[in-house]
Protein backbone atom coordinates (compact mmCIF):
# COMPACT_ATOMS: atom_id res chain seq x y z
CA UNK A 1 0.00 0.00 0.00
CA UNK A 2 1.36 3.33 -0.99
CA UNK A 3 0.88 6.21 1.33
CA UNK A 4 0.32 9.45 -0.45
CA UNK A 5 2.87 12.08 0.42
CA UNK A 6 1.45 15.35 1.47
CA UNK A 7 2.97 18.66 2.34
CA UNK A 8 1.22 20.67 4.94
CA UNK A 9 1.33 24.42 4.98
CA UNK A 10 0.97 26.06 8.32
CA UNK A 11 -2.32 27.82 8.80
CA UNK A 12 -2.12 31.57 9.02
CA UNK A 13 -3.35 31.75 12.59
CA UNK A 14 -0.62 29.36 13.72
CA UNK A 15 2.24 31.55 12.53
CA UNK A 16 3.45 34.16 15.01
CA UNK A 17 2.77 36.91 12.49
CA UNK A 18 -0.77 35.66 11.97
CA UNK A 19 -1.40 34.99 15.62
CA UNK A 20 -0.09 38.28 16.89
CA UNK A 21 0.12 40.86 14.13
CA UNK A 22 -2.98 39.98 12.14
CA UNK A 23 -5.27 39.79 15.13
CA UNK A 24 -3.96 43.08 16.45
CA UNK A 25 -4.52 44.68 13.07
CA UNK A 26 -8.08 43.41 12.88
CA UNK A 27 -9.00 44.57 16.38
CA UNK A 28 -7.44 47.97 15.84
CA UNK A 29 -9.51 48.40 12.70
CA UNK A 30 -12.66 47.74 14.72
CA UNK A 31 -11.54 50.20 17.38
CA UNK A 32 -10.89 52.88 14.80
CA UNK A 33 -14.19 52.27 13.03
CA UNK A 34 -16.34 52.44 16.15
CA UNK A 35 -14.48 55.38 17.59
CA UNK A 36 -14.88 57.32 14.35
CA UNK A 37 -18.50 56.33 13.75
CA UNK A 38 -20.46 54.53 16.44
CA UNK A 39 -20.54 51.03 17.88
CA UNK A 40 -22.99 48.43 16.76
CA UNK A 41 -24.96 48.52 20.00
CA UNK A 42 -28.41 50.08 19.98
CA UNK A 43 -29.07 51.92 23.24
CA UNK A 44 -32.45 50.28 23.47
CA UNK A 45 -34.77 52.33 25.66
CA UNK A 46 -33.61 55.53 23.96
CA UNK A 47 -33.00 54.23 20.47
CA UNK A 48 -35.01 51.63 18.65
CA UNK A 49 -34.31 49.43 15.70
CA UNK A 50 -36.18 50.20 12.51
CA UNK A 51 -38.70 47.38 12.33
CA UNK A 52 -39.74 45.92 8.99
CA UNK A 53 -43.20 46.65 7.57
CA UNK A 54 -44.42 43.13 8.16
CA UNK A 55 -43.11 42.93 11.72
CA UNK A 56 -45.32 40.59 13.73
CA UNK A 57 -45.90 42.17 17.12
CA UNK A 58 -49.09 41.94 19.12
CA UNK A 59 -52.31 41.41 17.11
CA UNK A 60 -54.62 44.34 16.56
CA UNK A 61 -58.16 44.49 15.28
CA UNK A 62 -60.36 46.74 13.18
CA UNK A 63 -63.80 46.31 14.74
CA UNK A 64 -65.68 47.61 11.69
CA UNK A 65 -64.33 44.81 9.52
CA UNK A 66 -64.63 41.95 12.02
CA UNK A 67 -67.59 39.64 11.46
CA UNK A 68 -67.09 37.53 14.56
CA UNK A 69 -66.46 34.28 12.70
CA UNK A 70 -64.09 33.01 15.46
CA UNK A 71 -61.61 31.51 13.01
CA UNK A 72 -58.82 33.19 14.96
CA UNK A 73 -60.04 31.44 18.10
CA UNK A 74 -59.76 28.08 16.39
CA UNK A 75 -56.36 28.67 14.82
CA UNK A 76 -54.59 30.20 17.82
CA UNK A 77 -51.85 27.73 18.84
CA UNK A 78 -51.69 29.07 22.40
CA UNK A 79 -55.45 29.31 22.76
CA UNK A 80 -55.16 32.84 24.01
CA UNK A 81 -58.07 34.21 21.95
CA UNK A 82 -61.62 34.08 23.29
CA UNK A 83 -64.87 35.48 21.91
CA UNK A 84 -66.42 37.90 24.37
CA UNK A 85 -69.58 39.89 24.00
CA UNK A 86 -69.26 43.63 23.80
CA UNK A 87 -71.81 46.34 23.30
CA UNK A 88 -71.01 49.41 21.21
CA UNK A 89 -73.35 52.04 19.77
CA UNK A 90 -72.39 51.18 16.19
CA UNK A 91 -72.38 47.41 16.38
CA UNK A 92 -74.87 46.67 19.09
CA UNK A 93 -74.33 43.56 21.16
CA UNK A 94 -71.84 41.33 19.34
CA UNK A 95 -69.10 38.81 20.05
CA UNK A 96 -65.59 39.87 19.21
CA UNK A 97 -62.16 38.33 19.99
CA UNK A 98 -60.35 39.15 23.20
CA UNK A 99 -56.63 38.32 23.34
CA UNK A 100 -54.54 37.38 26.35
CA UNK A 101 -51.35 39.08 25.22
CA UNK A 102 -49.34 37.55 28.04
CA UNK A 103 -49.89 34.16 26.47
CA UNK A 104 -49.68 35.32 22.84
CA UNK A 105 -46.56 34.21 20.97
CA UNK A 106 -46.96 36.75 18.18
CA UNK A 107 -47.15 34.13 15.46
CA UNK A 108 -49.70 36.17 13.51
CA UNK A 109 -51.73 33.12 12.54
CA UNK A 110 -54.93 34.91 13.57
CA UNK A 111 -54.19 37.70 11.12
CA UNK A 112 -53.21 35.18 8.49
CA UNK A 113 -56.46 33.29 8.71
CA UNK A 114 -58.80 36.26 9.13
CA UNK A 115 -61.23 36.19 6.16
CA UNK A 116 -61.88 39.94 6.23
CA UNK A 117 -58.39 41.10 7.21
CA UNK A 118 -59.88 42.63 10.35
CA UNK A 119 -57.07 41.14 12.44
CA UNK A 120 -53.71 42.84 11.96
CA UNK A 121 -50.18 42.26 13.08
CA UNK A 122 -48.98 45.50 14.67
CA UNK A 123 -45.37 46.44 15.36
CA UNK A 124 -46.06 46.89 19.08
CA UNK A 125 -43.90 44.64 21.22
CA UNK A 126 -43.42 46.57 24.49
CA UNK A 127 -46.31 44.98 26.33
CA UNK A 128 -44.97 44.66 29.86
CA UNK A 129 -47.34 45.71 32.61
CA UNK A 130 -47.54 45.48 36.36
CA UNK A 131 -50.40 42.98 36.57
CA UNK A 132 -51.88 40.21 34.53
CA UNK A 133 -55.26 41.84 34.17
CA UNK A 134 -53.68 44.55 32.02
CA UNK A 135 -52.47 41.91 29.62
CA UNK A 136 -56.04 40.92 28.73
CA UNK A 137 -56.72 42.96 25.62
CA UNK A 138 -60.48 43.17 25.19
CA UNK A 139 -61.77 43.99 21.69
CA UNK A 140 -61.93 47.71 22.42
CA UNK A 141 -58.35 47.83 23.72
CA UNK A 142 -57.18 45.56 20.94
CA UNK A 143 -58.09 48.08 18.25
CA UNK A 144 -55.21 49.44 16.25
CA UNK A 145 -55.06 51.97 13.42
CA UNK A 146 -54.59 50.34 10.07
CA UNK A 147 -51.59 50.79 7.86
CA UNK A 148 -50.89 48.97 4.60
CA UNK A 149 -48.64 46.07 5.43
CA UNK A 150 -50.19 45.34 8.79
CA UNK A 151 -52.58 42.75 7.42
CA UNK A 152 -51.14 39.40 6.41
CA UNK A 153 -51.80 38.42 2.81
CA UNK A 154 -50.53 35.40 1.01
CA UNK A 155 -51.09 33.42 -2.15
CA UNK A 156 -51.59 29.71 -2.39
CA UNK A 157 -51.71 26.97 -4.99
CA UNK A 158 -53.62 23.72 -4.87
CA UNK A 159 -51.57 20.56 -4.63
CA UNK A 160 -53.86 18.71 -7.02
CA UNK A 161 -53.30 21.34 -9.66
CA UNK A 162 -49.57 21.30 -8.97
CA UNK A 163 -49.53 17.57 -9.65
CA UNK A 164 -51.53 18.01 -12.82
CA UNK A 165 -49.12 20.68 -13.99
CA UNK A 166 -51.68 23.41 -14.27
CA UNK A 167 -50.71 25.36 -11.21
CA UNK A 168 -52.51 28.60 -10.60
CA UNK A 169 -52.04 30.86 -7.63
CA UNK A 170 -55.02 32.13 -5.73
CA UNK A 171 -55.11 35.11 -3.46
CA UNK A 172 -55.98 34.73 0.19
CA UNK A 173 -59.77 34.78 0.71
CA UNK A 174 -60.51 34.01 -2.91
CA UNK A 175 -64.33 33.67 -2.68
CA UNK A 176 -64.43 30.96 -5.34
CA UNK A 177 -61.62 28.79 -4.06
CA UNK A 178 -62.14 27.58 -0.54
CA UNK A 179 -63.53 24.64 1.37
CA UNK A 180 -67.23 24.03 1.04
CA UNK A 181 -69.93 22.91 3.45
CA UNK A 182 -71.71 19.70 2.47
CA UNK A 183 -75.15 18.77 3.71
CA UNK A 184 -76.15 15.21 4.42
CA UNK A 185 -79.86 15.58 3.60
CA UNK A 186 -80.95 12.41 5.38
CA UNK A 187 -79.75 13.67 8.75
CA UNK A 188 -81.09 17.22 8.48
CA UNK A 189 -84.07 18.04 10.69
CA UNK A 190 -84.63 21.54 9.26
CA UNK A 191 -83.98 23.26 12.56
CA UNK A 192 -82.37 26.27 10.79
CA UNK A 193 -79.78 26.75 13.51
CA UNK A 194 -77.03 26.94 10.87
CA UNK A 195 -78.81 29.79 9.14
CA UNK A 196 -79.19 31.65 12.43
CA UNK A 197 -75.60 31.20 13.45
CA UNK A 198 -73.93 32.04 10.13
CA UNK A 199 -72.01 35.34 10.59
CA UNK A 200 -72.09 36.23 6.89
CA UNK A 201 -75.65 35.20 6.05
CA UNK A 202 -74.46 32.68 3.50
CA UNK A 203 -77.02 30.08 4.54
CA UNK A 204 -80.61 30.37 3.48
CA UNK A 205 -83.41 27.93 4.30
CA UNK A 206 -84.99 26.91 1.01
CA UNK A 207 -88.12 24.83 0.45
CA UNK A 208 -87.37 21.58 -1.31
CA UNK A 209 -90.93 21.15 -2.61
CA UNK A 210 -91.61 18.11 -0.45
CA UNK A 211 -94.11 18.11 2.38
CA UNK A 212 -93.61 16.71 5.80
CA UNK A 213 -95.87 13.66 5.92
CA UNK A 214 -96.74 14.26 9.62
CA UNK A 215 -97.84 17.92 9.71
CA UNK A 216 -98.11 18.57 5.98
CA UNK A 217 -95.72 21.53 6.07
CA UNK A 218 -93.03 22.18 3.42
CA UNK A 219 -89.60 20.79 4.32
CA UNK A 220 -86.77 23.35 4.28
CA UNK A 221 -83.12 22.60 3.74
CA UNK A 222 -80.15 24.99 4.10
CA UNK A 223 -78.67 26.33 0.91
CA UNK A 224 -75.10 27.54 0.91
CA UNK A 225 -73.88 30.51 -1.01
CA UNK A 226 -70.21 29.74 -1.55
CA UNK A 227 -69.05 33.23 -2.45
CA UNK A 228 -70.30 34.54 0.89
CA UNK A 229 -69.06 31.63 2.99
CA UNK A 230 -65.83 32.16 4.97
CA UNK A 231 -65.55 28.55 6.20
CA UNK A 232 -65.80 29.48 9.84
CA UNK A 233 -67.34 26.05 10.59
CA UNK A 234 -69.75 27.49 13.10
CA UNK A 235 -72.66 25.84 11.31
CA UNK A 236 -70.85 22.51 11.45
CA UNK A 237 -70.34 22.90 15.16
CA UNK A 238 -73.86 24.03 15.89
CA UNK A 239 -75.66 21.33 13.91
CA UNK A 240 -77.49 19.07 16.41
CA UNK A 241 -77.53 16.02 14.12
CA UNK A 242 -74.01 16.41 12.60
CA UNK A 243 -75.59 16.73 9.20
CA UNK A 244 -73.01 19.25 7.98
CA UNK A 245 -69.43 18.53 7.11
CA UNK A 246 -66.50 20.28 5.44
CA UNK A 247 -65.37 19.27 1.99
CA UNK A 248 -61.82 20.37 1.55
CA UNK A 249 -60.37 21.73 -1.66
CA UNK A 250 -57.23 19.82 -2.29
Amino acid sequence: MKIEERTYTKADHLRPTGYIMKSMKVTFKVLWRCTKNRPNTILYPWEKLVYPDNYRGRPGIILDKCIGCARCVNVCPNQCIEMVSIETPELGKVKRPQINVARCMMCGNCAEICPTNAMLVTPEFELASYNRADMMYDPIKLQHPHKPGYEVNYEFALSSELKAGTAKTYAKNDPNMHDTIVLDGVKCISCARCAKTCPTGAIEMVETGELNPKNKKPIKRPKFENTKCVVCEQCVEVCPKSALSIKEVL
Partner: protein
Amino acid sequence: METLYTVLQGLSEWLLGVIAWLVDWTRLGFLSGLADWLETEPVLTAVTTLLVAVIYLITLMMMGLCFIWMERKFLGRFMDRRGTQVGVLGFFQNFADGIKVVLKEHIVPKAADRGLFEFAIFAILATSFMLFGCIPLSPQFYVINVDLALLLGLAIFSFAPFSILIGGWASNNKFTLIGGMRAAAQLIALEIPILLVVVSVVVMTGSLSFMDIVSWQQENIWLGIPLFIGLITFLIAAIGEAERVPFDLPEAEAELVEGWQTEYGDVRWGLVMASDYFRAYIMCALVTMMFLGGWDGPDFIWAEIWFLSKTFIVFFFFVWVRAAMVRIRTDQILTLGWRRLLPLAVVNLLIAIALKTAEVF
Protein backbone atom coordinates in the same frame (compact mmCIF):
# COMPACT_ATOMS: atom_id res chain seq x y z
CA MET B 1 12.77 71.06 46.52
CA GLU B 2 9.17 71.12 47.69
CA THR B 3 7.85 67.58 47.88
CA LEU B 4 4.56 66.10 49.01
CA TYR B 5 6.17 65.36 52.36
CA THR B 6 7.36 68.89 53.03
CA VAL B 7 4.01 70.35 51.97
CA LEU B 8 2.13 68.08 54.32
CA GLN B 9 4.63 68.67 57.12
CA GLY B 10 3.28 72.17 57.60
CA LEU B 11 -0.28 70.88 57.61
CA SER B 12 0.37 68.16 60.17
CA GLU B 13 2.38 70.60 62.33
CA TRP B 14 -0.63 72.92 62.37
CA LEU B 15 -2.98 69.99 63.03
CA LEU B 16 -0.91 68.73 65.97
CA GLY B 17 -0.65 72.30 67.30
CA VAL B 18 -4.45 72.61 67.30
CA ILE B 19 -4.82 69.28 69.11
CA ALA B 20 -2.15 70.26 71.66
CA TRP B 21 -3.90 73.60 72.22
CA LEU B 22 -7.22 71.79 72.76
CA VAL B 23 -5.55 69.43 75.23
CA ASP B 24 -4.06 72.44 77.08
CA TRP B 25 -7.44 74.18 77.08
CA THR B 26 -9.03 71.34 79.05
CA ARG B 27 -6.61 72.15 81.95
CA LEU B 28 -6.44 68.53 82.99
CA GLY B 29 -3.14 68.11 84.80
CA PHE B 30 -2.48 64.56 83.73
CA LEU B 31 -2.78 65.51 80.08
CA SER B 32 -0.16 68.24 80.11
CA GLY B 33 2.54 65.74 79.19
CA LEU B 34 0.52 64.63 76.18
CA ALA B 35 0.41 68.10 74.68
CA ASP B 36 4.18 68.40 74.90
CA TRP B 37 4.63 64.95 73.42
CA LEU B 38 2.35 65.77 70.49
CA GLU B 39 4.68 68.56 69.39
CA THR B 40 7.83 66.47 69.38
CA GLU B 41 9.67 65.53 66.19
CA PRO B 42 8.85 61.75 66.00
CA VAL B 43 5.09 62.34 66.29
CA LEU B 44 5.24 64.98 63.58
CA THR B 45 7.15 62.59 61.29
CA ALA B 46 4.73 59.75 61.95
CA VAL B 47 1.63 61.84 61.30
CA THR B 48 3.09 63.37 58.14
CA THR B 49 4.10 59.97 56.81
CA LEU B 50 0.63 58.67 57.50
CA LEU B 51 -0.94 61.60 55.67
CA VAL B 52 1.37 61.15 52.70
CA ALA B 53 0.62 57.44 52.57
CA VAL B 54 -3.12 57.98 52.72
CA ILE B 55 -3.12 60.66 50.02
CA TYR B 56 -0.88 58.58 47.78
CA LEU B 57 -2.97 55.46 48.32
CA ILE B 58 -6.21 57.26 47.49
CA THR B 59 -4.66 58.85 44.40
CA LEU B 60 -3.40 55.57 43.07
CA MET B 61 -6.58 53.67 43.90
CA MET B 62 -8.46 56.23 41.85
CA MET B 63 -5.92 55.58 39.12
CA GLY B 64 -6.68 51.89 39.43
CA LEU B 65 -10.37 52.63 39.02
CA CYS B 66 -9.53 54.70 35.94
CA PHE B 67 -7.66 51.69 34.59
CA ILE B 68 -10.68 49.44 35.07
CA TRP B 69 -12.90 52.05 33.45
CA MET B 70 -10.47 52.48 30.56
CA GLU B 71 -10.28 48.76 29.99
CA ARG B 72 -14.06 48.41 29.99
CA LYS B 73 -14.60 51.26 27.55
CA PHE B 74 -11.76 50.37 25.21
CA LEU B 75 -12.53 46.67 25.25
CA GLY B 76 -16.08 47.60 24.33
CA ARG B 77 -14.88 49.60 21.34
CA PHE B 78 -12.53 46.82 20.33
CA MET B 79 -15.53 44.49 20.29
CA ASP B 80 -17.82 46.89 18.43
CA ARG B 81 -20.02 47.68 21.41
CA ARG B 82 -20.33 50.38 24.04
CA GLY B 83 -18.64 49.69 27.36
CA THR B 84 -20.19 50.59 30.69
CA GLN B 85 -23.07 53.05 30.70
CA VAL B 86 -23.54 54.06 34.35
CA GLY B 87 -22.83 57.69 35.10
CA VAL B 88 -20.54 60.02 33.18
CA LEU B 89 -19.24 57.94 30.26
CA GLY B 90 -19.73 54.85 32.39
CA PHE B 91 -17.22 55.87 35.05
CA PHE B 92 -19.53 55.18 37.98
CA GLN B 93 -19.98 51.53 37.07
CA ASN B 94 -16.90 50.80 39.16
CA PHE B 95 -18.45 52.44 42.21
CA ALA B 96 -21.70 50.57 41.63
CA ASP B 97 -19.76 47.31 41.45
CA GLY B 98 -17.86 48.24 44.59
CA ILE B 99 -21.05 48.96 46.54
CA LYS B 100 -22.57 45.72 45.35
CA VAL B 101 -19.52 43.73 46.37
CA VAL B 102 -19.36 45.39 49.80
CA LEU B 103 -22.94 44.38 50.52
CA LYS B 104 -22.20 40.69 49.92
CA GLU B 105 -21.90 38.11 52.67
CA HIS B 106 -18.51 36.78 53.70
CA ILE B 107 -18.54 33.03 53.26
CA VAL B 108 -15.72 30.65 54.18
CA PRO B 109 -16.07 27.10 52.84
CA LYS B 110 -16.57 24.54 55.58
CA ALA B 111 -13.63 22.38 54.55
CA ALA B 112 -11.31 25.30 53.91
CA ASP B 113 -8.28 26.07 56.05
CA ARG B 114 -9.76 29.15 57.61
CA GLY B 115 -6.61 30.84 58.85
CA LEU B 116 -4.70 30.53 55.56
CA PHE B 117 -7.85 31.30 53.57
CA GLU B 118 -8.16 34.67 55.29
CA PHE B 119 -4.42 35.29 55.32
CA ALA B 120 -3.82 34.74 51.60
CA ILE B 121 -6.22 37.45 50.54
CA PHE B 122 -4.69 39.97 52.91
CA ALA B 123 -1.21 39.00 51.81
CA ILE B 124 -1.95 39.71 48.16
CA LEU B 125 -3.85 42.90 48.94
CA ALA B 126 -1.15 44.18 51.28
CA THR B 127 1.59 43.52 48.73
CA SER B 128 -0.44 45.24 46.02
CA PHE B 129 -0.92 48.32 48.17
CA MET B 130 2.71 48.30 49.27
CA LEU B 131 3.73 48.37 45.62
CA PHE B 132 2.03 51.71 45.22
CA GLY B 133 4.49 53.25 47.63
CA CYS B 134 7.47 52.07 45.61
CA ILE B 135 6.54 53.91 42.43
CA PRO B 136 7.03 57.67 42.51
CA LEU B 137 4.84 59.77 40.25
CA SER B 138 7.36 62.60 39.99
CA PRO B 139 10.36 63.94 41.92
CA GLN B 140 7.89 65.83 44.09
CA PHE B 141 5.04 63.33 44.47
CA TYR B 142 6.24 60.13 46.12
CA VAL B 143 6.10 58.16 49.34
CA ILE B 144 9.50 56.56 49.65
CA ASN B 145 12.70 57.25 47.76
CA VAL B 146 15.25 54.61 48.64
CA ASP B 147 18.32 53.68 46.66
CA LEU B 148 17.06 50.15 46.01
CA ALA B 149 13.48 51.15 45.08
CA LEU B 150 13.44 49.07 41.86
CA LEU B 151 14.67 45.96 43.63
CA LEU B 152 12.24 46.54 46.50
CA GLY B 153 9.33 46.86 44.12
CA LEU B 154 10.18 43.67 42.26
CA ALA B 155 10.73 41.83 45.53
CA ILE B 156 7.28 42.80 46.76
CA PHE B 157 5.80 41.98 43.39
CA SER B 158 7.19 38.46 43.41
CA PHE B 159 5.43 37.78 46.70
CA ALA B 160 2.21 37.29 44.69
CA PRO B 161 2.66 33.63 43.56
CA PHE B 162 3.25 32.70 47.20
CA SER B 163 -0.05 34.13 48.42
CA ILE B 164 -1.93 32.89 45.34
CA LEU B 165 -0.68 29.36 45.94
CA ILE B 166 -1.68 29.59 49.62
CA GLY B 167 -5.11 30.92 48.70
CA GLY B 168 -5.66 28.20 46.11
CA TRP B 169 -4.55 25.50 48.51
CA ALA B 170 -6.53 26.77 51.49
CA SER B 171 -9.80 26.98 49.52
CA ASN B 172 -9.92 23.17 49.29
CA ASN B 173 -11.26 23.19 45.74
CA LYS B 174 -9.75 21.63 42.65
CA PHE B 175 -10.23 24.72 40.49
CA THR B 176 -8.52 27.00 42.98
CA LEU B 177 -5.68 24.55 43.50
CA ILE B 178 -5.03 24.19 39.76
CA GLY B 179 -5.28 27.96 39.37
CA GLY B 180 -2.82 28.51 42.19
CA MET B 181 -0.34 26.01 40.75
CA ARG B 182 -0.57 27.58 37.31
CA ALA B 183 -0.10 31.03 38.78
CA ALA B 184 2.99 29.98 40.66
CA ALA B 185 4.55 28.22 37.65
CA GLN B 186 3.77 31.08 35.28
CA LEU B 187 4.82 33.91 37.55
CA ILE B 188 8.13 32.26 38.39
CA ALA B 189 8.85 31.49 34.73
CA LEU B 190 8.31 35.12 33.74
CA GLU B 191 10.10 36.57 36.75
CA ILE B 192 13.54 35.65 35.42
CA PRO B 193 13.37 37.55 32.08
CA ILE B 194 11.94 40.54 33.93
CA LEU B 195 14.84 40.59 36.39
CA LEU B 196 17.39 40.22 33.59
CA VAL B 197 15.87 43.14 31.70
CA VAL B 198 15.92 45.17 34.89
CA VAL B 199 19.60 44.28 35.28
CA SER B 200 20.30 45.65 31.81
CA VAL B 201 18.56 48.90 32.78
CA VAL B 202 20.65 49.05 35.93
CA VAL B 203 23.79 48.45 33.90
CA MET B 204 22.93 51.40 31.67
CA THR B 205 21.91 53.84 34.39
CA GLY B 206 24.11 52.60 37.19
CA SER B 207 21.39 52.96 39.82
CA LEU B 208 18.40 51.13 41.27
CA SER B 209 16.63 54.30 42.31
CA PHE B 210 13.79 55.49 40.11
CA MET B 211 14.86 59.09 40.52
CA ASP B 212 18.33 58.32 39.16
CA ILE B 213 17.02 56.10 36.37
CA VAL B 214 14.71 58.86 35.14
CA SER B 215 17.27 61.62 35.51
CA TRP B 216 19.77 59.50 33.54
CA GLN B 217 17.18 59.18 30.77
CA GLN B 218 16.49 62.91 30.91
CA GLU B 219 20.21 63.60 30.39
CA ASN B 220 20.87 60.95 27.73
CA ILE B 221 18.14 59.09 25.90
CA TRP B 222 14.96 57.17 26.66
CA LEU B 223 16.11 53.63 27.31
CA GLY B 224 13.39 52.19 25.11
CA ILE B 225 15.44 53.16 22.05
CA PRO B 226 18.80 51.45 22.71
CA LEU B 227 17.19 48.61 24.67
CA PHE B 228 14.27 48.02 22.31
CA ILE B 229 14.57 44.24 22.67
CA GLY B 230 14.42 44.68 26.40
CA LEU B 231 11.31 46.84 26.11
CA ILE B 232 9.50 44.17 24.07
CA THR B 233 10.63 41.38 26.39
CA PHE B 234 9.57 43.36 29.44
CA LEU B 235 6.17 44.19 27.94
CA ILE B 236 5.40 40.53 27.19
CA ALA B 237 6.62 39.36 30.56
CA ALA B 238 4.74 42.19 32.26
CA ILE B 239 1.46 41.12 30.69
CA GLY B 240 2.15 37.63 32.04
CA GLU B 241 3.07 38.92 35.48
CA ALA B 242 -0.10 40.99 35.65
CA GLU B 243 -2.05 37.82 34.71
CA ARG B 244 -3.70 39.49 31.77
CA VAL B 245 -5.34 37.86 28.83
CA PRO B 246 -2.92 35.99 26.61
CA PHE B 247 -1.42 34.68 29.87
CA ASP B 248 -4.44 34.67 32.17
CA LEU B 249 -4.09 31.00 33.07
CA PRO B 250 -4.42 31.51 36.84
CA GLU B 251 -7.89 32.92 36.31
CA ALA B 252 -8.94 31.17 33.05
CA GLU B 253 -12.63 31.88 33.44
CA ALA B 254 -13.73 29.45 30.75
CA GLU B 255 -12.13 26.38 32.27
CA LEU B 256 -11.32 27.15 35.90
CA VAL B 257 -14.47 29.05 36.90
CA GLU B 258 -12.64 32.00 38.48
CA GLY B 259 -9.23 30.43 38.99
CA TRP B 260 -7.73 30.62 42.44
CA GLN B 261 -10.36 33.18 43.55
CA THR B 262 -13.28 30.81 43.04
CA GLU B 263 -14.10 30.39 46.72
CA TYR B 264 -13.68 34.03 47.64
CA GLY B 265 -16.68 36.30 47.85
CA ASP B 266 -17.69 39.72 49.13
CA VAL B 267 -15.38 42.70 49.30
CA ARG B 268 -12.25 40.56 49.48
CA TRP B 269 -12.92 39.22 46.01
CA GLY B 270 -13.74 42.72 44.77
CA LEU B 271 -10.45 44.04 46.09
CA VAL B 272 -8.54 41.14 44.55
CA MET B 273 -10.15 41.87 41.19
CA ALA B 274 -9.22 45.52 41.61
CA SER B 275 -5.72 44.55 42.67
CA ASP B 276 -5.28 42.84 39.30
CA TYR B 277 -5.57 46.29 37.81
CA PHE B 278 -3.37 47.81 40.51
CA ARG B 279 -0.69 45.30 39.59
CA ALA B 280 -1.22 46.03 35.92
CA TYR B 281 -0.71 49.69 36.81
CA ILE B 282 2.53 48.83 38.60
CA MET B 283 3.76 46.99 35.51
CA CYS B 284 2.80 49.87 33.23
CA ALA B 285 4.52 52.26 35.60
CA LEU B 286 7.70 50.15 35.55
CA VAL B 287 7.71 50.12 31.74
CA THR B 288 7.20 53.88 31.71
CA MET B 289 9.85 54.46 34.32
CA MET B 290 12.53 52.26 32.82
CA PHE B 291 12.02 52.62 29.07
CA LEU B 292 9.82 55.61 28.31
CA GLY B 293 11.59 58.25 30.34
CA GLY B 294 9.26 58.32 33.34
CA TRP B 295 8.05 61.88 33.93
CA ASP B 296 10.38 63.25 31.26
CA GLY B 297 8.60 65.59 28.90
CA PRO B 298 8.12 69.24 27.94
CA ASP B 299 7.54 71.49 30.91
CA PHE B 300 4.15 72.99 30.05
CA ILE B 301 2.22 70.52 32.23
CA TRP B 302 3.03 68.75 35.45
CA ALA B 303 5.51 65.90 35.50
CA GLU B 304 2.86 63.69 37.14
CA ILE B 305 0.58 64.18 34.14
CA TRP B 306 3.36 63.11 31.79
CA PHE B 307 4.02 60.04 33.86
CA LEU B 308 0.38 59.00 34.14
CA SER B 309 -0.39 59.62 30.48
CA LYS B 310 2.53 57.43 29.47
CA THR B 311 1.22 54.78 31.85
CA PHE B 312 -2.17 55.02 30.20
CA ILE B 313 -0.62 54.58 26.77
CA VAL B 314 1.18 51.44 27.92
CA PHE B 315 -2.05 50.17 29.46
CA PHE B 316 -3.84 50.83 26.18
CA PHE B 317 -1.37 48.44 24.63
CA PHE B 318 -2.27 45.89 27.31
CA VAL B 319 -5.97 46.29 26.52
CA TRP B 320 -5.28 46.01 22.81
CA VAL B 321 -3.40 42.76 23.35
CA ARG B 322 -6.28 41.50 25.48
CA ALA B 323 -8.76 42.27 22.73
CA ALA B 324 -6.63 40.66 20.03
CA MET B 325 -5.22 37.50 21.55
CA VAL B 326 -6.55 34.19 22.80
CA ARG B 327 -5.29 32.42 25.89
CA ILE B 328 -2.33 30.10 25.35
CA ARG B 329 -1.59 26.84 27.10
CA THR B 330 0.48 26.39 30.25
CA ASP B 331 3.31 24.63 28.44
CA GLN B 332 3.33 27.33 25.78
CA ILE B 333 3.64 30.02 28.44
CA LEU B 334 6.51 28.18 30.11
CA THR B 335 8.19 27.58 26.73
CA LEU B 336 7.78 31.23 25.89
CA GLY B 337 9.17 32.27 29.25
CA TRP B 338 12.19 30.01 29.40
CA ARG B 339 13.11 29.48 25.75
CA ARG B 340 12.18 32.75 24.07
CA LEU B 341 12.05 35.58 26.60
CA LEU B 342 15.04 34.45 28.63
CA PRO B 343 17.47 34.38 25.62
CA LEU B 344 16.04 37.73 24.47
CA ALA B 345 16.66 39.18 27.91
CA VAL B 346 20.23 37.88 27.87
CA VAL B 347 20.80 39.37 24.42
CA ASN B 348 19.40 42.62 25.71
CA LEU B 349 21.75 42.49 28.68
CA LEU B 350 24.71 41.91 26.34
CA ILE B 351 23.66 44.92 24.28
CA ALA B 352 23.49 47.02 27.42
CA ILE B 353 26.94 45.86 28.52
CA ALA B 354 28.36 46.51 25.05
CA LEU B 355 26.90 50.00 24.97
CA LYS B 356 28.26 50.71 28.42
CA THR B 357 31.77 49.38 27.72
CA ALA B 358 31.93 51.23 24.41
CA GLU B 359 30.92 54.33 26.39
CA VAL B 360 28.27 55.35 23.90
CA PHE B 361 26.26 57.00 26.64
